[in-house]
Protein backbone atom coordinates (compact mmCIF):
# COMPACT_ATOMS: atom_id res chain seq x y z
CA UNK A 1 0.00 0.00 0.00
CA UNK A 2 1.70 3.17 -1.20
CA UNK A 3 1.59 6.49 0.62
CA UNK A 4 -0.75 9.25 -0.54
CA UNK A 5 0.81 11.96 -2.62
CA UNK A 6 0.69 15.19 -0.63
CA UNK A 7 2.01 17.71 -3.16
CA UNK A 8 2.62 18.28 -6.86
CA UNK A 9 6.36 17.77 -6.24
CA UNK A 10 5.72 14.38 -4.70
CA UNK A 11 3.93 13.37 -7.91
CA UNK A 12 6.95 14.44 -9.93
CA UNK A 13 9.24 12.39 -7.67
CA UNK A 14 6.97 9.37 -8.03
CA UNK A 15 7.07 9.85 -11.80
CA UNK A 16 10.85 9.64 -11.83
CA UNK A 17 10.65 6.42 -9.86
CA UNK A 18 8.00 5.04 -12.22
CA UNK A 19 10.16 5.90 -15.25
CA UNK A 20 13.20 4.18 -13.84
CA UNK A 21 11.14 1.13 -12.79
CA UNK A 22 9.98 0.69 -16.37
CA UNK A 23 13.44 0.64 -17.85
CA UNK A 24 14.82 -2.85 -17.57
CA UNK A 25 17.94 -4.49 -18.86
CA UNK A 26 18.92 -5.23 -22.43
CA UNK A 27 18.88 -8.96 -21.71
CA UNK A 28 15.32 -8.83 -20.42
CA UNK A 29 12.05 -8.98 -22.35
CA UNK A 30 8.60 -7.47 -21.87
CA UNK A 31 5.69 -9.19 -23.61
CA UNK A 32 2.49 -7.16 -24.02
CA UNK A 33 -0.67 -9.05 -24.91
CA UNK A 34 -3.71 -7.14 -26.14
CA UNK A 35 -6.37 -8.22 -23.66
CA UNK A 36 -9.14 -5.69 -24.15
CA UNK A 37 -12.54 -7.16 -24.98
CA UNK A 38 -11.57 -7.50 -28.66
CA UNK A 39 -8.37 -9.39 -27.94
CA UNK A 40 -10.05 -11.58 -25.34
CA UNK A 41 -12.88 -12.41 -27.72
CA UNK A 42 -10.29 -13.51 -30.29
CA UNK A 43 -8.51 -15.82 -27.84
CA UNK A 44 -5.91 -13.66 -26.08
CA UNK A 45 -6.47 -15.43 -22.74
CA UNK A 46 -5.41 -18.71 -24.28
CA UNK A 47 -2.42 -17.02 -25.92
CA UNK A 48 -1.40 -15.68 -22.52
CA UNK A 49 -1.52 -19.14 -20.93
CA UNK A 50 0.41 -20.70 -23.77
CA UNK A 51 3.07 -18.01 -23.49
CA UNK A 52 3.33 -18.35 -19.71
CA UNK A 53 3.51 -22.16 -19.92
CA UNK A 54 6.06 -22.01 -22.68
CA UNK A 55 8.25 -19.57 -20.75
CA UNK A 56 8.25 -21.96 -17.82
CA UNK A 57 9.04 -24.94 -20.03
CA UNK A 58 11.93 -23.13 -21.62
CA UNK A 59 13.22 -22.11 -18.21
CA UNK A 60 13.32 -18.39 -19.01
CA UNK A 61 13.53 -16.06 -16.01
CA UNK A 62 14.04 -12.74 -17.79
CA UNK A 63 10.54 -12.20 -19.20
CA UNK A 64 7.70 -10.06 -17.89
CA UNK A 65 4.26 -10.82 -19.39
CA UNK A 66 1.74 -7.97 -19.19
CA UNK A 67 -1.72 -7.14 -20.49
CA UNK A 68 -2.55 -4.05 -22.44
CA UNK A 69 -5.62 -2.51 -24.05
CA UNK A 70 -6.58 -2.29 -27.70
CA UNK A 71 -3.70 -1.72 -30.13
CA UNK A 72 -6.13 -0.71 -32.87
CA UNK A 73 -5.14 -3.64 -35.11
CA UNK A 74 -8.43 -5.39 -34.52
CA UNK A 75 -8.22 -7.18 -37.90
CA UNK A 76 -5.20 -9.11 -36.61
CA UNK A 77 -6.24 -10.09 -33.08
CA UNK A 78 -4.84 -11.71 -30.97
CA UNK A 79 -1.90 -9.27 -31.02
CA UNK A 80 1.31 -9.66 -29.02
CA UNK A 81 4.10 -7.11 -28.79
CA UNK A 82 7.63 -8.04 -27.67
CA UNK A 83 9.95 -5.33 -26.36
CA UNK A 84 13.52 -5.56 -25.12
CA UNK A 85 13.76 -4.57 -21.47
CA UNK A 86 15.80 -1.40 -21.96
CA UNK A 87 13.75 -0.01 -24.84
CA UNK A 88 10.98 2.61 -24.31
CA UNK A 89 7.27 1.84 -24.03
CA UNK A 90 5.61 1.33 -27.39
CA UNK A 91 8.78 0.41 -29.26
CA UNK A 92 8.34 -3.36 -29.51
CA UNK A 93 7.86 -5.78 -32.39
CA UNK A 94 4.17 -6.35 -33.03
CA UNK A 95 2.93 -9.80 -34.00
CA UNK A 96 -0.59 -10.45 -35.27
CA UNK A 97 -2.95 -13.41 -35.80
CA UNK A 98 -1.22 -15.08 -32.85
CA UNK A 99 -2.55 -18.58 -32.21
CA UNK A 100 -1.19 -21.22 -29.83
CA UNK A 101 1.48 -22.34 -32.30
CA UNK A 102 2.65 -18.79 -33.02
CA UNK A 103 2.65 -18.01 -29.30
CA UNK A 104 5.06 -20.88 -28.67
CA UNK A 105 7.16 -19.80 -31.62
CA UNK A 106 7.44 -16.30 -30.16
CA UNK A 107 8.78 -17.71 -26.90
CA UNK A 108 11.22 -20.13 -28.52
CA UNK A 109 12.47 -17.91 -31.34
CA UNK A 110 12.16 -14.33 -30.13
CA UNK A 111 12.44 -14.59 -26.36
CA UNK A 112 14.92 -17.45 -26.14
CA UNK A 113 17.04 -16.79 -29.23
CA UNK A 114 16.38 -13.13 -29.98
CA UNK A 115 15.16 -13.98 -33.50
CA UNK A 116 12.40 -11.81 -34.95
CA UNK A 117 9.66 -13.70 -36.82
CA UNK A 118 9.44 -11.46 -39.90
CA UNK A 119 6.34 -12.89 -41.55
CA UNK A 120 4.26 -12.57 -38.39
CA UNK A 121 4.81 -8.83 -38.00
CA UNK A 122 1.80 -6.57 -38.61
CA UNK A 123 1.16 -2.87 -38.94
CA UNK A 124 4.30 -1.94 -40.87
CA UNK A 125 2.18 -0.36 -43.60
CA UNK A 126 0.52 2.04 -41.19
CA UNK A 127 2.45 4.76 -39.47
CA UNK A 128 1.23 5.77 -36.04
CA UNK A 129 2.56 9.01 -34.54
CA UNK A 130 2.10 9.89 -30.89
CA UNK A 131 2.81 13.60 -30.50
Amino acid at each position, binding site marked *: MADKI*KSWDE*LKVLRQKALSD*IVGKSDEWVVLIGR*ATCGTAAGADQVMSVINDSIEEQGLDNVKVLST*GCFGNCYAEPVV*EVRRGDMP*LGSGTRYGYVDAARAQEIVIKHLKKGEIIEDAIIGQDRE*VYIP
Partner: protein
Amino acid sequence: MSDQVRQVRIAMRNCGIIDPSNIMEYIARDGYEALGKSIFELTPENVIDIIKSSGLRGRGGAGFPTGTKWEFTGKSQGNKKYVICNADEGDPGAFMDRSILEGDPHSVLEAMAICGYAIGSNEGIIYIRAEYPGAVERLQEAIAKAEELGLLGDNIMGSSFSFRIRLYLGAGAFVCGEETSLMNSVQGRRGEPRIKPPFPAQKGLWNVPTNINNVETFANITQIILKGADWFRSFGNEDSPGTKVFALAGKVNNVGLIEIPMGTSLRDVVNKIGGGVSDNKEFKAIQTGGPSGGCIPAAHLDIPVDFKSLRELGSIMGSGGMIVMDESDCMVAVSKFFLEFTAEESCGKCTPCRIGNMRLLEILTRITEGNGTEGDLEELQRLGRTICDTSLCGLGQSSPNPVLSTLNHYMDEYIAHVRDKKCPSGTCTNLLTFIILDGKCTGCTLCKKVCPTSCISGERKEIHHIDQEHCIKCGACFDKCPFKAIIKK
Protein backbone atom coordinates in the same frame (compact mmCIF):
# COMPACT_ATOMS: atom_id res chain seq x y z
CA MET B 1 6.65 13.48 -43.64
CA SER B 2 3.77 15.97 -43.56
CA ASP B 3 2.38 14.59 -46.84
CA GLN B 4 2.40 11.13 -45.39
CA VAL B 5 -0.99 9.87 -44.34
CA ARG B 6 -0.61 8.57 -40.85
CA GLN B 7 -2.47 8.03 -37.62
CA VAL B 8 -1.93 10.58 -34.87
CA ARG B 9 -2.73 9.27 -31.42
CA ILE B 10 -3.85 11.80 -28.84
CA ALA B 11 -6.95 10.24 -27.25
CA MET B 12 -5.45 6.77 -27.71
CA ARG B 13 -1.89 7.76 -26.82
CA ASN B 14 -1.54 5.07 -24.15
CA CYS B 15 -3.69 2.32 -25.67
CA GLY B 16 -1.65 -0.75 -26.48
CA ILE B 17 1.35 0.87 -24.83
CA ILE B 18 0.74 0.73 -21.09
CA ASP B 19 -0.71 -1.91 -18.84
CA PRO B 20 -3.99 -0.17 -17.85
CA SER B 21 -3.99 -1.90 -14.45
CA ASN B 22 -0.68 -0.31 -13.54
CA ILE B 23 -1.12 3.29 -12.43
CA MET B 24 2.66 3.75 -12.30
CA GLU B 25 2.92 3.30 -16.08
CA TYR B 26 0.25 5.98 -16.52
CA ILE B 27 2.11 8.29 -14.15
CA ALA B 28 5.38 7.61 -15.99
CA ARG B 29 3.76 8.92 -19.18
CA ASP B 30 2.87 12.27 -17.56
CA GLY B 31 -0.19 10.88 -15.80
CA TYR B 32 -1.91 13.28 -13.38
CA GLU B 33 0.59 16.03 -14.27
CA ALA B 34 -2.16 17.99 -16.01
CA LEU B 35 -4.32 17.75 -12.88
CA GLY B 36 -1.40 18.93 -10.79
CA LYS B 37 -0.78 21.82 -13.18
CA SER B 38 -4.46 22.80 -13.11
CA ILE B 39 -4.78 22.74 -9.32
CA PHE B 40 -1.45 24.33 -8.44
CA GLU B 41 -0.67 26.63 -11.36
CA LEU B 42 -3.92 27.57 -13.10
CA THR B 43 -7.19 29.13 -11.99
CA PRO B 44 -10.46 27.49 -13.02
CA GLU B 45 -10.92 30.31 -15.55
CA ASN B 46 -7.44 29.65 -17.01
CA VAL B 47 -8.35 26.00 -17.53
CA ILE B 48 -11.58 26.90 -19.30
CA ASP B 49 -9.75 29.42 -21.49
CA ILE B 50 -7.23 26.83 -22.60
CA ILE B 51 -9.94 24.34 -23.52
CA LYS B 52 -11.91 27.05 -25.33
CA SER B 53 -8.88 28.22 -27.30
CA SER B 54 -8.05 24.68 -28.33
CA GLY B 55 -11.30 24.50 -30.27
CA LEU B 56 -11.98 20.97 -28.98
CA ARG B 57 -15.47 19.90 -30.05
CA GLY B 58 -17.47 17.13 -28.42
CA ARG B 59 -16.54 13.72 -29.73
CA GLY B 60 -19.84 12.01 -28.90
CA GLY B 61 -21.62 13.13 -32.04
CA ALA B 62 -23.00 16.64 -31.68
CA GLY B 63 -19.63 18.37 -31.85
CA PHE B 64 -20.52 21.17 -29.44
CA PRO B 65 -17.48 23.26 -28.39
CA THR B 66 -16.27 21.69 -25.14
CA GLY B 67 -14.72 24.83 -23.65
CA THR B 68 -17.97 26.72 -24.14
CA LYS B 69 -19.91 23.97 -22.37
CA TRP B 70 -17.49 24.07 -19.46
CA GLU B 71 -17.79 27.85 -19.35
CA PHE B 72 -21.61 27.76 -19.21
CA THR B 73 -21.58 25.19 -16.41
CA GLY B 74 -18.85 27.10 -14.60
CA LYS B 75 -20.86 30.32 -14.68
CA SER B 76 -24.07 28.68 -13.46
CA GLN B 77 -24.92 29.48 -9.88
CA GLY B 78 -24.95 26.79 -7.24
CA ASN B 79 -22.56 25.06 -4.92
CA LYS B 80 -23.47 21.54 -6.05
CA LYS B 81 -22.51 20.63 -9.59
CA TYR B 82 -21.85 17.34 -11.37
CA VAL B 83 -19.42 16.15 -14.00
CA ILE B 84 -20.80 13.27 -16.03
CA CYS B 85 -18.88 11.12 -18.47
CA ASN B 86 -21.15 9.59 -21.10
CA ALA B 87 -19.76 6.10 -21.61
CA ASP B 88 -23.00 4.62 -22.92
CA GLU B 89 -21.63 4.23 -26.47
CA GLY B 90 -24.84 2.91 -27.97
CA ASP B 91 -24.09 3.08 -31.72
CA PRO B 92 -23.92 -0.48 -33.07
CA GLY B 93 -20.38 -1.28 -34.12
CA ALA B 94 -18.81 1.65 -32.25
CA PHE B 95 -16.15 0.74 -29.73
CA MET B 96 -13.89 3.78 -29.55
CA ASP B 97 -14.95 4.63 -26.03
CA ARG B 98 -14.68 1.03 -24.84
CA SER B 99 -11.10 0.85 -26.05
CA ILE B 100 -10.13 4.08 -24.35
CA LEU B 101 -11.72 2.97 -21.09
CA GLU B 102 -10.12 -0.49 -21.26
CA GLY B 103 -6.76 0.74 -22.46
CA ASP B 104 -6.27 4.00 -20.56
CA PRO B 105 -8.95 4.51 -17.89
CA HIS B 106 -6.90 7.05 -15.91
CA SER B 107 -6.90 9.58 -18.75
CA VAL B 108 -10.68 9.88 -18.40
CA LEU B 109 -10.57 10.03 -14.59
CA GLU B 110 -7.92 12.75 -14.61
CA ALA B 111 -9.86 14.78 -17.20
CA MET B 112 -13.07 14.56 -15.17
CA ALA B 113 -11.21 15.87 -12.13
CA ILE B 114 -9.78 18.75 -14.20
CA CYS B 115 -13.31 19.53 -15.38
CA GLY B 116 -14.55 19.45 -11.79
CA TYR B 117 -11.83 21.92 -10.81
CA ALA B 118 -12.70 24.20 -13.73
CA ILE B 119 -16.46 24.31 -13.22
CA GLY B 120 -16.67 24.00 -9.43
CA SER B 121 -17.77 20.41 -8.95
CA ASN B 122 -16.62 17.76 -6.49
CA GLU B 123 -18.52 14.81 -7.85
CA GLY B 124 -18.19 12.88 -11.07
CA ILE B 125 -20.30 10.06 -12.44
CA ILE B 126 -19.37 7.77 -15.28
CA TYR B 127 -22.55 6.45 -16.93
CA ILE B 128 -21.32 3.25 -18.53
CA ARG B 129 -23.29 0.64 -20.39
CA ALA B 130 -23.59 -2.67 -18.55
CA GLU B 131 -22.57 -4.45 -21.78
CA TYR B 132 -18.97 -3.32 -21.08
CA PRO B 133 -17.97 -5.46 -18.08
CA GLY B 134 -14.27 -5.30 -19.04
CA ALA B 135 -14.28 -1.51 -19.04
CA VAL B 136 -16.26 -1.41 -15.78
CA GLU B 137 -13.63 -3.58 -14.12
CA ARG B 138 -10.74 -1.46 -15.42
CA LEU B 139 -12.44 1.72 -14.22
CA GLN B 140 -13.24 0.38 -10.76
CA GLU B 141 -9.64 -0.73 -10.40
CA ALA B 142 -8.31 2.60 -11.63
CA ILE B 143 -10.53 4.67 -9.33
CA ALA B 144 -9.41 2.58 -6.34
CA LYS B 145 -5.73 2.97 -7.21
CA ALA B 146 -6.00 6.71 -7.83
CA GLU B 147 -7.77 7.19 -4.49
CA GLU B 148 -5.11 5.11 -2.75
CA LEU B 149 -2.44 7.49 -4.02
CA GLY B 150 -4.41 10.62 -3.19
CA LEU B 151 -4.88 11.51 -6.88
CA LEU B 152 -8.66 11.31 -6.50
CA GLY B 153 -10.86 11.68 -3.44
CA ASP B 154 -10.42 14.22 -0.67
CA ASN B 155 -7.68 16.85 -0.82
CA ILE B 156 -6.08 15.75 -4.06
CA MET B 157 -2.28 15.93 -3.85
CA GLY B 158 -2.64 17.71 -0.53
CA SER B 159 -4.66 20.58 -2.04
CA SER B 160 -8.06 21.87 -0.96
CA PHE B 161 -9.67 20.39 -4.10
CA SER B 162 -11.60 17.16 -3.66
CA PHE B 163 -13.17 15.09 -6.43
CA ARG B 164 -14.84 11.70 -6.19
CA ILE B 165 -15.93 9.55 -9.10
CA ARG B 166 -18.44 6.72 -9.10
CA LEU B 167 -19.86 4.49 -11.78
CA TYR B 168 -23.49 4.15 -12.78
CA LEU B 169 -24.39 1.23 -15.03
CA GLY B 170 -26.82 1.53 -17.91
CA ALA B 171 -29.52 -1.03 -18.59
CA GLY B 172 -29.41 -1.49 -22.34
CA ALA B 173 -31.31 1.47 -23.77
CA PHE B 174 -29.80 3.32 -26.73
CA VAL B 175 -31.77 6.44 -25.84
CA CYS B 176 -29.84 6.73 -22.55
CA GLY B 177 -26.86 7.89 -24.55
CA GLU B 178 -28.81 11.10 -25.08
CA GLU B 179 -27.79 13.41 -22.23
CA THR B 180 -31.19 14.27 -20.78
CA SER B 181 -32.37 10.64 -20.90
CA LEU B 182 -29.07 9.65 -19.30
CA MET B 183 -29.68 12.01 -16.40
CA ASN B 184 -33.23 10.71 -15.96
CA SER B 185 -31.79 7.22 -15.87
CA VAL B 186 -29.25 8.17 -13.17
CA GLN B 187 -32.15 9.62 -11.19
CA GLY B 188 -33.86 6.24 -11.30
CA ARG B 189 -36.46 7.29 -13.83
CA ARG B 190 -37.26 5.78 -17.19
CA GLY B 191 -34.83 6.82 -19.88
CA GLU B 192 -36.83 9.55 -21.59
CA PRO B 193 -35.51 12.90 -22.78
CA ARG B 194 -36.33 16.26 -21.27
CA ILE B 195 -37.07 19.32 -23.30
CA LYS B 196 -34.13 21.71 -23.80
CA PRO B 197 -33.73 24.52 -22.73
CA PRO B 198 -32.97 24.38 -19.84
CA PHE B 199 -29.68 22.74 -20.81
CA PRO B 200 -27.77 20.48 -18.41
CA ALA B 201 -25.27 23.32 -17.87
CA GLN B 202 -28.05 25.23 -16.13
CA LYS B 203 -30.32 22.47 -14.84
CA GLY B 204 -28.98 18.96 -15.22
CA LEU B 205 -28.75 15.99 -12.88
CA TRP B 206 -31.14 16.52 -9.95
CA ASN B 207 -31.78 19.95 -11.48
CA VAL B 208 -28.32 21.32 -10.72
CA PRO B 209 -25.65 22.49 -13.21
CA THR B 210 -24.07 19.49 -14.87
CA ASN B 211 -21.35 19.13 -17.48
CA ILE B 212 -21.71 16.02 -19.64
CA ASN B 213 -18.98 15.00 -22.05
CA ASN B 214 -18.21 11.87 -24.02
CA VAL B 215 -15.29 9.55 -23.13
CA GLU B 216 -13.20 10.55 -26.12
CA THR B 217 -13.75 14.24 -25.48
CA PHE B 218 -12.34 13.75 -21.98
CA ALA B 219 -9.44 11.68 -23.33
CA ASN B 220 -8.11 14.77 -25.11
CA ILE B 221 -8.14 17.09 -22.09
CA THR B 222 -4.89 16.24 -20.28
CA GLN B 223 -2.78 16.68 -23.40
CA ILE B 224 -4.36 20.03 -24.19
CA ILE B 225 -3.61 21.25 -20.67
CA LEU B 226 -0.02 20.02 -20.80
CA LYS B 227 0.87 20.98 -24.36
CA GLY B 228 -1.40 23.96 -24.96
CA ALA B 229 -4.24 25.03 -27.21
CA ASP B 230 -1.95 25.92 -30.13
CA TRP B 231 -0.40 22.47 -30.08
CA PHE B 232 -3.86 20.91 -30.33
CA ARG B 233 -4.83 23.24 -33.16
CA SER B 234 -1.77 22.16 -35.11
CA PHE B 235 -3.71 18.98 -35.88
CA GLY B 236 -6.92 18.90 -37.85
CA ASN B 237 -8.40 21.99 -39.46
CA GLU B 238 -10.19 25.23 -38.63
CA ASP B 239 -13.64 23.65 -38.48
CA SER B 240 -12.50 20.63 -36.50
CA PRO B 241 -9.19 20.92 -34.62
CA GLY B 242 -7.45 17.85 -33.28
CA THR B 243 -7.90 14.19 -34.10
CA LYS B 244 -10.79 11.70 -34.06
CA VAL B 245 -10.93 8.02 -33.26
CA PHE B 246 -12.90 5.96 -35.77
CA ALA B 247 -14.03 2.35 -35.68
CA LEU B 248 -13.41 1.31 -39.25
CA ALA B 249 -15.51 -1.72 -40.17
CA GLY B 250 -17.27 -3.45 -43.03
CA LYS B 251 -15.76 -4.41 -46.36
CA VAL B 252 -12.28 -3.07 -45.64
CA ASN B 253 -9.05 -4.98 -45.10
CA ASN B 254 -7.75 -3.42 -41.90
CA VAL B 255 -10.81 -3.28 -39.67
CA GLY B 256 -10.15 -1.73 -36.33
CA LEU B 257 -9.61 1.45 -34.45
CA ILE B 258 -7.78 4.33 -36.02
CA GLU B 259 -7.10 7.85 -34.78
CA ILE B 260 -6.51 10.40 -37.51
CA PRO B 261 -6.17 14.17 -37.78
CA MET B 262 -9.48 15.75 -38.73
CA GLY B 263 -9.39 16.80 -42.35
CA THR B 264 -7.84 13.55 -43.64
CA SER B 265 -9.71 12.58 -46.81
CA LEU B 266 -12.15 9.66 -46.81
CA ARG B 267 -10.18 8.15 -49.67
CA ASP B 268 -7.00 8.08 -47.58
CA VAL B 269 -8.87 6.62 -44.63
CA VAL B 270 -10.20 3.73 -46.73
CA ASN B 271 -7.20 3.09 -48.92
CA LYS B 272 -4.08 4.18 -47.08
CA ILE B 273 -5.03 3.49 -43.49
CA GLY B 274 -7.77 0.93 -44.05
CA GLY B 275 -5.74 -1.07 -46.57
CA GLY B 276 -8.40 -0.78 -49.27
CA VAL B 277 -11.75 -2.45 -49.95
CA SER B 278 -11.61 -6.14 -49.11
CA ASP B 279 -11.58 -8.86 -51.82
CA ASN B 280 -10.61 -6.17 -54.33
CA LYS B 281 -14.23 -5.25 -54.78
CA GLU B 282 -15.52 -1.89 -55.93
CA PHE B 283 -16.07 0.78 -53.28
CA LYS B 284 -19.73 1.77 -53.13
CA ALA B 285 -20.33 3.83 -50.00
CA ILE B 286 -19.09 4.65 -46.57
CA GLN B 287 -21.62 4.93 -43.77
CA THR B 288 -20.65 7.33 -40.99
CA GLY B 289 -22.32 8.24 -37.72
CA GLY B 290 -24.07 4.98 -36.97
CA PRO B 291 -27.88 4.91 -36.92
CA SER B 292 -27.98 8.73 -36.92
CA GLY B 293 -25.76 9.07 -39.94
CA GLY B 294 -25.85 8.68 -43.68
CA CYS B 295 -24.04 7.07 -46.57
CA ILE B 296 -21.45 8.83 -48.69
CA PRO B 297 -20.85 7.59 -52.24
CA ALA B 298 -17.62 7.20 -54.18
CA ALA B 299 -18.04 10.56 -55.91
CA HIS B 300 -17.32 12.31 -52.61
CA LEU B 301 -14.38 10.22 -51.45
CA ASP B 302 -12.06 13.19 -51.53
CA ILE B 303 -13.89 15.20 -48.90
CA PRO B 304 -12.04 15.94 -45.67
CA VAL B 305 -13.37 14.09 -42.64
CA ASP B 306 -14.61 16.91 -40.41
CA PHE B 307 -17.89 17.97 -38.81
CA LYS B 308 -18.87 20.45 -41.51
CA SER B 309 -18.10 18.38 -44.61
CA LEU B 310 -19.92 15.30 -43.39
CA ARG B 311 -22.98 17.32 -42.44
CA GLU B 312 -23.06 19.08 -45.80
CA LEU B 313 -23.32 15.70 -47.50
CA GLY B 314 -26.25 14.60 -45.41
CA SER B 315 -24.36 12.51 -42.90
CA ILE B 316 -22.78 13.29 -39.53
CA MET B 317 -19.49 12.63 -37.76
CA GLY B 318 -21.37 10.85 -35.00
CA SER B 319 -19.36 9.03 -32.40
CA GLY B 320 -16.97 7.58 -34.97
CA GLY B 321 -18.46 4.52 -36.64
CA MET B 322 -17.37 4.13 -40.29
CA ILE B 323 -18.70 1.22 -42.30
CA VAL B 324 -17.27 0.57 -45.74
CA MET B 325 -19.68 -0.92 -48.29
CA ASP B 326 -19.15 -2.58 -51.64
CA GLU B 327 -21.30 -3.51 -54.63
CA SER B 328 -22.95 -6.37 -52.75
CA ASP B 329 -24.51 -4.04 -50.17
CA CYS B 330 -28.05 -2.91 -50.87
CA MET B 331 -28.54 0.71 -49.77
CA VAL B 332 -32.27 0.18 -49.20
CA ALA B 333 -31.55 -2.78 -46.94
CA VAL B 334 -28.92 -0.71 -45.08
CA SER B 335 -31.38 2.05 -44.26
CA LYS B 336 -33.94 -0.56 -43.18
CA PHE B 337 -31.34 -2.16 -40.92
CA PHE B 338 -30.64 1.12 -39.12
CA LEU B 339 -34.29 2.03 -38.89
CA GLU B 340 -35.12 -1.35 -37.32
CA PHE B 341 -32.64 -0.40 -34.62
CA THR B 342 -33.85 3.13 -33.96
CA ALA B 343 -37.54 2.17 -34.12
CA GLU B 344 -36.89 -0.52 -31.50
CA GLU B 345 -34.91 1.88 -29.31
CA SER B 346 -37.36 4.79 -29.48
CA CYS B 347 -38.48 5.58 -25.94
CA GLY B 348 -42.01 6.36 -27.18
CA LYS B 349 -42.40 9.73 -25.49
CA CYS B 350 -43.02 11.82 -28.60
CA THR B 351 -45.37 10.95 -31.43
CA PRO B 352 -43.15 11.75 -34.44
CA CYS B 353 -40.45 9.31 -33.36
CA ARG B 354 -42.69 6.65 -31.83
CA ILE B 355 -45.17 6.39 -34.68
CA GLY B 356 -43.21 8.01 -37.52
CA ASN B 357 -40.30 5.57 -37.32
CA MET B 358 -42.67 2.59 -37.33
CA ARG B 359 -44.34 3.89 -40.48
CA LEU B 360 -40.96 4.50 -42.14
CA LEU B 361 -39.95 0.97 -41.27
CA GLU B 362 -43.18 -0.46 -42.68
CA ILE B 363 -42.63 1.32 -45.98
CA LEU B 364 -39.00 0.19 -46.21
CA THR B 365 -39.97 -3.39 -45.41
CA ARG B 366 -42.59 -3.33 -48.15
CA ILE B 367 -40.04 -1.99 -50.61
CA THR B 368 -37.48 -4.68 -49.80
CA GLU B 369 -40.15 -7.33 -50.17
CA GLY B 370 -41.08 -6.15 -53.64
CA ASN B 371 -44.33 -4.44 -52.69
CA GLY B 372 -43.23 -0.81 -52.87
CA THR B 373 -44.53 1.94 -55.17
CA GLU B 374 -43.06 5.19 -56.43
CA GLY B 375 -45.47 7.04 -54.17
CA ASP B 376 -43.73 5.32 -51.27
CA LEU B 377 -40.51 7.14 -52.11
CA GLU B 378 -42.17 10.53 -51.82
CA GLU B 379 -43.77 9.45 -48.57
CA LEU B 380 -40.38 8.37 -47.19
CA GLN B 381 -38.99 11.85 -47.93
CA ARG B 382 -41.97 13.71 -46.45
CA LEU B 383 -42.28 11.55 -43.38
CA GLY B 384 -38.52 11.48 -42.83
CA ARG B 385 -38.26 15.27 -42.91
CA THR B 386 -41.20 15.64 -40.53
CA ILE B 387 -39.69 13.25 -38.00
CA CYS B 388 -36.37 15.13 -38.14
CA ASP B 389 -38.04 18.48 -37.59
CA THR B 390 -40.47 17.58 -34.85
CA SER B 391 -38.92 14.90 -32.62
CA LEU B 392 -38.11 15.77 -29.02
CA CYS B 393 -34.54 14.48 -28.90
CA GLY B 394 -31.54 13.59 -30.99
CA LEU B 395 -32.64 9.99 -31.48
CA GLY B 396 -35.78 10.94 -33.39
CA GLN B 397 -34.20 14.02 -34.96
CA SER B 398 -31.60 11.87 -36.66
CA SER B 399 -33.23 8.46 -37.12
CA PRO B 400 -34.46 9.24 -40.67
CA ASN B 401 -30.93 10.23 -41.75
CA PRO B 402 -29.95 6.84 -43.22
CA VAL B 403 -33.15 6.85 -45.32
CA LEU B 404 -32.91 10.46 -46.46
CA SER B 405 -29.24 10.19 -47.28
CA THR B 406 -29.61 6.99 -49.32
CA LEU B 407 -32.65 8.42 -51.14
CA ASN B 408 -30.49 11.39 -52.05
CA HIS B 409 -27.42 9.53 -53.29
CA TYR B 410 -28.88 6.19 -54.44
CA MET B 411 -32.29 7.01 -55.88
CA ASP B 412 -31.69 4.60 -58.77
CA GLU B 413 -31.54 1.69 -56.36
CA TYR B 414 -34.84 2.63 -54.75
CA ILE B 415 -36.43 2.99 -58.19
CA ALA B 416 -35.15 -0.46 -59.19
CA HIS B 417 -36.81 -1.86 -56.07
CA VAL B 418 -40.18 -0.16 -56.51
CA ARG B 419 -40.56 0.00 -60.28
CA ASP B 420 -38.63 -3.00 -61.60
CA LYS B 421 -38.96 -5.10 -58.41
CA LYS B 422 -35.25 -5.85 -58.63
CA CYS B 423 -32.43 -5.55 -56.09
CA PRO B 424 -29.31 -4.54 -58.07
CA SER B 425 -26.89 -5.76 -55.39
CA GLY B 426 -28.60 -9.15 -55.04
CA THR B 427 -29.33 -8.75 -51.35
CA CYS B 428 -33.11 -8.41 -50.95
CA THR B 429 -34.10 -12.04 -51.15
CA ASN B 430 -37.72 -11.41 -52.05
CA LEU B 431 -36.68 -9.65 -55.23
CA LEU B 432 -34.49 -12.46 -56.40
CA THR B 433 -35.43 -15.33 -58.65
CA PHE B 434 -34.01 -18.73 -57.83
CA ILE B 435 -33.29 -20.81 -60.93
CA ILE B 436 -32.02 -24.36 -61.30
CA LEU B 437 -29.44 -24.58 -64.07
CA ASP B 438 -30.08 -27.37 -66.60
CA GLY B 439 -26.44 -27.93 -67.22
CA LYS B 440 -25.51 -28.56 -63.58
CA CYS B 441 -28.52 -30.27 -62.01
CA THR B 442 -27.96 -33.99 -61.39
CA GLY B 443 -31.45 -34.74 -60.07
CA CYS B 444 -30.18 -35.62 -56.61
CA THR B 445 -33.53 -34.39 -55.10
CA LEU B 446 -31.85 -32.76 -52.10
CA CYS B 447 -33.36 -29.34 -52.91
CA LYS B 448 -36.81 -30.82 -53.39
CA LYS B 449 -36.64 -32.36 -49.94
CA VAL B 450 -35.80 -29.07 -48.16
CA CYS B 451 -38.26 -26.86 -49.99
CA PRO B 452 -40.84 -25.68 -47.40
CA THR B 453 -43.54 -25.05 -50.02
CA SER B 454 -42.80 -28.17 -52.08
CA CYS B 455 -42.51 -26.03 -55.19
CA ILE B 456 -39.61 -27.98 -56.70
CA SER B 457 -40.56 -30.74 -59.10
CA GLY B 458 -38.52 -33.48 -60.76
CA GLU B 459 -37.85 -37.19 -60.44
CA ARG B 460 -34.59 -38.80 -59.36
CA LYS B 461 -31.84 -38.24 -61.97
CA GLU B 462 -34.07 -35.79 -63.84
CA ILE B 463 -33.45 -32.06 -64.04
CA HIS B 464 -35.45 -30.31 -61.31
CA HIS B 465 -37.53 -27.21 -61.73
CA ILE B 466 -38.72 -24.45 -59.37
CA ASP B 467 -42.30 -23.23 -59.66
CA GLN B 468 -41.76 -19.47 -59.37
CA GLU B 469 -45.35 -18.78 -58.41
CA HIS B 470 -45.04 -20.75 -55.19
CA CYS B 471 -41.42 -20.03 -54.43
CA ILE B 472 -41.13 -17.98 -51.23
CA LYS B 473 -37.45 -17.12 -51.88
CA CYS B 474 -36.26 -18.63 -48.62
CA GLY B 475 -33.00 -19.77 -50.23
CA ALA B 476 -33.02 -23.21 -48.57
CA CYS B 477 -32.51 -24.95 -51.92
CA PHE B 478 -29.65 -22.60 -52.79
CA ASP B 479 -27.90 -23.41 -49.54
CA LYS B 480 -28.51 -27.16 -49.89
CA CYS B 481 -27.39 -27.82 -53.47
CA PRO B 482 -24.00 -29.57 -53.48
CA PHE B 483 -23.41 -28.93 -57.20
CA LYS B 484 -23.92 -25.13 -57.25
CA ALA B 485 -26.69 -25.77 -59.74
CA ILE B 486 -29.01 -23.12 -58.29
CA ILE B 487 -28.41 -19.43 -58.93
CA LYS B 488 -30.17 -16.32 -57.74
CA LYS B 489 -30.64 -13.22 -59.84
